[in-house]
């Protein structure tokens, strides 16, 4: 039994039965727009890399689905099915209080990742699942990296800020503020100040932002 759950941009997610377990099969499909050689390199790299990072994240105390099998040849990963709701669908429906609490929790989990030298690489609310017990699972580590560089951490949080601005524009500011508060609780005030300064620097870099003409 295999049901297509979601046809994403990068991969298709199937809900399947695997040795009596409900699992997700994540299959990175070939991309016809890219040259074959480039496409194979990218898909192979991400298929190997993603489970490694998910495992590392788990060791850092961040909930991620358990990995059951990796099929490099077919660019497929078989992992635990997490029952819950995408934070993307949920966030704007919550009360102000619950929303702030959830964002605080998300910030705390990101702090754990960064403290353990992991950046997620694609922090959006689509890649977070809240289960019935209030645990936030992180998925989609395909663009992540093992690094403790401030630059990478800054970009990680910048991506989340932008995802909030484009998708949850009604609450973006308070959500991101709550994420940063939770993050600060996890990494400490100095590290938080450094990464926030980095985010400001990233936002001024080459792109059109009003702040740039004031500063530099």
């Amino acid at each position, binding site marked *: 039994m295999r049901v297509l759950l979601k*046809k994403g941009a990068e991969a298709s997610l199937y809900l399947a039965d695997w040795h009596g377990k409900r699992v997700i099969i994540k299959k990175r499909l070939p991309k016809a727009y*890219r040259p074959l*050689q480039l496409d194979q390199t*990218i898909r192979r790299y991400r298929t190997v890399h993603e489970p490694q990072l998910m495992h590392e994240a788990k060791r850092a105390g961040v909930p991620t689905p358990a990995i059951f099998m990796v099929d490099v040849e077919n660019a497929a990963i078989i992992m635990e099915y997490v029952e819950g709701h995408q934070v993307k669908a949920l966030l704007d429906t919550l009360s102000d209080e619950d929303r702030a609490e959830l964002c605080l929790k998300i910030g705390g989990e990101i702090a754990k990742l960064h403290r353990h030298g992991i950046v997620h*690489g694609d922090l959006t609310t689509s890649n977070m699942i809240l289960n019935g017990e209030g645990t936030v699972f992180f998925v989609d580590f395909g*663009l992540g990296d093992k690094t403790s560089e401030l630059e990478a951490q800054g970009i990680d949080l910048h991506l989340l800020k932008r995802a909030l*601005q484009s998708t949850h*524009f009604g609450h973006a500011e308070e959500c991101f503020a709550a994420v940063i508060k939770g993050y600060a609780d996890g990494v400490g005030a100095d590290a938080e100040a450094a990464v926030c300064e980095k985010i400001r620097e990233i936002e001024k870099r080459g792109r*059109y*932002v009003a702040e740039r003409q004031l500063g530099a």
Partner: protein
Amino acid sequence: MSPARKDRLCLGIESTADDFGVGIANFYGDILANVSSSYIPASGGIHPREAARHHAEVADQVLAQALEKANIKPRELSVIAFAQGPGLGPCLRTGATVARALASYLNIPLVGVNHSVGHIEIGKLKTGAADPLTLYASGGNTMVTAYAVGRYRVFGETLDIALGNCLDVFAREAGLKPQKGLPLGASVEQLAAKGKVLVPLPYVVKGMDMSLSGLLTAAATALQKGNFSLEDVCFSLQENAFSMVTEVTERALAHTEKREVLLTGGVAANKRLQAMLAIIAEEHDAKFNVVPQAFATDNGAMIAWTGVLAYTSGLTTPLEESFVKLRWRVDKVDVPWVKQP
């Protein structure tokens, strides 16, 4: 075809970078004129002050040509629109000065238009796309936007240099000379079509953003080392850069679930980029649209048409608020004329 109506007309001035353009649009979406003059640097990239000097020198000629093309007198204009930002300061100020002078002299309203919104709106007008996910790629901008609740939201963009900038700088590094009427990027496209070997180059996608500066450096270095032909490096540069922007566009498409994709901006003329985007649009059952070449690069018509949209929504820009905005982000602009689908 019946002649375009001339009862209500907007003249738009574009001068954000190397092009000085004047377009004239009526309120029904007909473009009556679209004239421009490009500053071509003797060497290197755009020098803002030199470009502004060029714009000041050609302004009266370009204006006269546009009025002649549209076959109208200045008195027949109802509104003057100008690109208020984002862009290069001296260039923007030159266009703004001409616009203010015209509006004051004719005693008609002035409308400041966001240049990026202009590229999106002319793309929609010319292709018929109603609510597209837009990839706007030019020498100064690379972003993926879509409309939601009052504004064009930015879903992805470059973290450093723009796609057109990446191709142009590489072309200059490779010693390619601009051909008359063609951007440098077009030379890269021609050479890339003859390339076969894929040179390993960085592929940097971060979420829905991409980074192109490392790719540019690596491509320039690969060329200098001399192990690969210029054609192969051009080919590899394009394949990597376009794959990256296509990947983020596809991510945004899956995320927003829009039914249309629009490619706009100067790099929209590139056939290989068009082909890549057409593939992802088809895979997501979305209709693919490309802005016609005449409206792909910076042009006055897009400013004129966006001026019409803004003006007919009740927006004007008083003289004292007509200062230029060098870094005016597209997601800071209210677009009340767009209807929520």
